[in-house]
């Protein structure tokens, strides 16, 4: 058994778009040379600008899209060429949570059916009563009610649908889950439930997670390693704490500085990103970030940086060392903790909850 469960090698995926009958379309380089490897049991996060190719990358990893070039290896076997039965079997171990909870559920199937389906596919021996039971459990697990099994997707709110998607992905007992913004539509309390759940599964079953998310607090909370993407390429990756505490790539810095904090009256000190996001159909030459980088120098325009080792993380920037040195004193301010008043209420609440839970658990 290797350490690495999922490995991408120089993945490229291009889309031809805009070609009408007569016009020749442009080529969107949605994913343009991404290599990564995910270790068994870890949580690997991918963050990045909207439209930078995260979903495309995720679909490539899932083999829902076939790569223009490059290879994907799952559990030591190259899956770029698999199809049919072998691919279907693979999906017992590898599951996907779709980004859009609205369009990714078949409107004509009940939630029970939707969640029961992976079970039926990957555990055909299970009888229907057991399956219903399992569906009920799964619903419960993601904070929905077993009664909901008989309802149809359109009767649910966005967050509820997202949970259905998660339950569906969990059903077959996969080894790896790729989540494309799996908790984005959830309110924080349910989000917390789901994160805890995933954490538990990870601890108990050695589940590996690949998470795409925009909510960096969630990422920081959950993930072991993070990769930051910009315009179809990975610009920085490394252990979560390191990346969050000392980002090396200017884009990562900008990203982190833009996080709004759930505390009243905290002044935002964002690092401004100037300029327009370039189009993936026509990416800038050299370093793709140079058009918006506050630290850009003239040769950034011509020289494309490669990912290089930098203090335990990897960065694709020519001048990371200098920038880091510059910003030495500008360490991230710790967000102000909630006021004592609020903190006291939190404690009170937590205590009461724990009491409650204990009571439920000991009840016959």
């Amino acid at each position: 058994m290797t350490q690495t469960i999922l490995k991408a090698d120089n993945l490229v995926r291009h889309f031809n778009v805009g070609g009408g009958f007569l016009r020749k379309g442009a080529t969107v380089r949605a994913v343009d040379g991404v290599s990564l490897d995910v270790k068994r049991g870890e949580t690997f996060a991918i963050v990045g600008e909207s439209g930078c190719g995260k979903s495309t990358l995720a679909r490539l990893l899932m083999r829902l899209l076939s790569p223009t070039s490059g290879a994907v290896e799952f559990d030591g076997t190259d899956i770029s060429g698999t199809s049919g039965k072998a691919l279907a079997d693979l999906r017992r171990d590898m599951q996907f949570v779709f980004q859009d909870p609205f369009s990714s559920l078949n409107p004509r199937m009940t939630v029970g059916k939707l969640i029961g389906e992976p079970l039926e596919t990957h555990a055909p021996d299970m009888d229907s009563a057991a399956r219903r039971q399992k569906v009920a459990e799964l619903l419960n697990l993601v904070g929905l009610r077993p009664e909901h099994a008989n309802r149809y997707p359109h009767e649910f709110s966005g967050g509820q649908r997202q949970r259905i998607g998660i339950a569906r992905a969990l059903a077959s007992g996969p080894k790896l889950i790729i989540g494309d913004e799996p908790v984005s539509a959830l309110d924080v309390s349910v989000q917390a439930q789901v994160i805890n759940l995933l954490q538990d599964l990870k601890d108990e079953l050695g589940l590996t997670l690949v998470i795409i998310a925009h909510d960096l607090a969630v990422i920081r909370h959950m993930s072991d390693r993070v990769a930051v993407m910009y315009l179809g390429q990975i610009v920085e990756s490394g252990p979560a704490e390191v990346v969050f505490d000392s980002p090396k790539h200017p884009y990562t810095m900008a990203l982190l500085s833009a996080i709004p904090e759930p505390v009243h009256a905290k002044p935002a000190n964002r690092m401004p990103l100037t300029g327009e996001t370039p189009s993936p159909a026509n990416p800038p030459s050299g370093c793709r970030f140079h058009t918006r980088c506050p630290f850009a120098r003239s040769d950034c325009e011509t020289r494309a940086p490669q990912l290089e080792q930098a203090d335990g993380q990897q960065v694709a920037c020519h001048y990371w060392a200098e920038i880091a040195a510059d910003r030495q004193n500008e360490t991230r301010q710790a967000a102000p903790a909630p006021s004592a008043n609020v903190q006291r209420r939190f404690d009170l609440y937590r205590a009461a909850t724990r009491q409650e839970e204990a009571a439920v658990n000991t009840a016959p």
Partner: protein
Amino acid sequence: MLSFILRRILIAIPTILLISVFVFGMQKLLPGDPVLAMAGEERDPEVIEYLREKYRLNDPIPVQYVNWMGGVLQGDLGISLRTNQPVTELIAQKLPVTIQLAIMAMIFALVIGIPAGILSAVKKGTPIDYVANVVALSGLSIPNFWLGIMLILLVSVKWQLLPASGYVPFGEDPLLSIKVMLMPAFVLGTALAATLMRHTRSAMLGVLKSDYVRTARAKGLKERVVILKHALRNALTPIVTLSALLFGELIAGAVLTEQIFTIPGFGKLVVDAVFNRDYAVVQGIVLCTGVGFIVMNLLADAAYFILNPRLRKQ
């Protein structure tokens, strides 16, 4: 675009071959003897034998097919056993007639069917919906001949408004030509209108529930625009497929209407040819309709592209 068309033409060639082999084979398997049908009441055996030789009906079927195909490649579709006219000429004579009829019927159908379908979808469950449905379904259930004859009796005999039957070439007198075709086109169009209406209704019902229709409303668009632009456009996919198919069926299905209104079109030509086992004519017609279907399908596919941008990638 060009390569798309070229590819389709390349694909069309085997299709047409397939069609011609299929129909040729079928025809030859039919009971009944073309020569017997041609020989007349007296059925002189000598004449029969001569005709068999003349039209090479004694050759093995594959040989006959190859002979025929050889002619086709040189643009010769053979001659009608019944009237001795060249098949190309017959087709050239009849095709415009039927196309005119089909187009007019199609216009009727579209003009009646689609708005009615939209209306009944939008007003689902109201009396308007019920009335539209009942009218549409009766249009479908009333046989063409009945409607045709009733129209003739009423419009031509009683009110003397339109000619009872016949045909005037469009080039000769466009207005009269259209006038003469009004009733047949209407008769032919009713069933189609019903079909289109029902499909439009169903497709619209589906689309009206979608999120983007809600978005359109949220923009503050007039309900009319929401329905006619945003909803209809997306409901059109099945309707377009269907229209293309139905147009083809129209040409084939015009038989009865042509019969009643005595329109010298394709439909009647096919039927007579089949009944008289006028092989060359049947074969020529089938070739022609085959091409027609291919063109219609091509148009339908092109319409898909236009209507559903999602298909345009790659």
